[in-house]
């Protein structure tokens, strides 16, 4: 599954990262997998949220089959 990255993560790691996600998972699992691959960005990932199908997720369980698009959202800073 290609996970979209933005901001500092996109610049350092790339616009997407390929992860092996199980059939059922939570947002933290996604962040943890990236942290393992890129421990240098643990600090940013600890402050990030996960969006599925362009909606923020929290602690709910996510079914892989329902995921069209998944993205990591670092702290936003528009305005």
């Amino acid at each position, binding site marked *: 599954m290609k996970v979209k990255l933005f901001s500092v993560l996109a610049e350092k790691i790339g616009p997407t990262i390929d992860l092996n996600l199980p059939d059922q998972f939570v947002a933290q699992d996604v962040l943890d997998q990236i942290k393992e691959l890129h421990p240098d960005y643990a600090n940013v990932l600890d402050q990030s949220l996960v969006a599925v199908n362009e909606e923020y997720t929290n602690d709910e369980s996510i079914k892989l089959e329902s995921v069209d698009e998944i993205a990591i959202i*670092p702290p936003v800073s*528009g305005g």
Partner: protein
Amino acid sequence: MSIVKIVEEPIDVAGLTESLMHDEYGGIDTFIGTIRQFTDEVETEKIEYTTYKKMAEKEMHKLADIVLAKGMDVVMVHRVGELALGEVAVFIGVAAPHRAEAFENCQMLIDTLKKTVPIWKKEYDKDKIRWGGLGE
């Protein structure tokens, strides 16, 4: 009438303000955010905004809909790309029958946009590059 979008070209402040003028509303409040040169001691040279555009516009529409549902008119436009000092990054406007609700809702929109809409700034400061929103 409501205009809600992310753009790459310069924001047309005059045209957007004009779009909020209707005979049925007496009060218009607008907020314009520009690239500021100094933040305390830090001198900024330019800012690059990036976005997760589809999601950002979806989140902006969620906010605009709250205000539209109260019978007001709304404009929310955020620019992305590289912006120079003094350029307009964001324009928020609310037209309402009475001024108190125009102020209240305009301020709510910009305050919430800054918390929920996936837009990020990379600040090119004189001393170094800073990523907005990140604790260090």
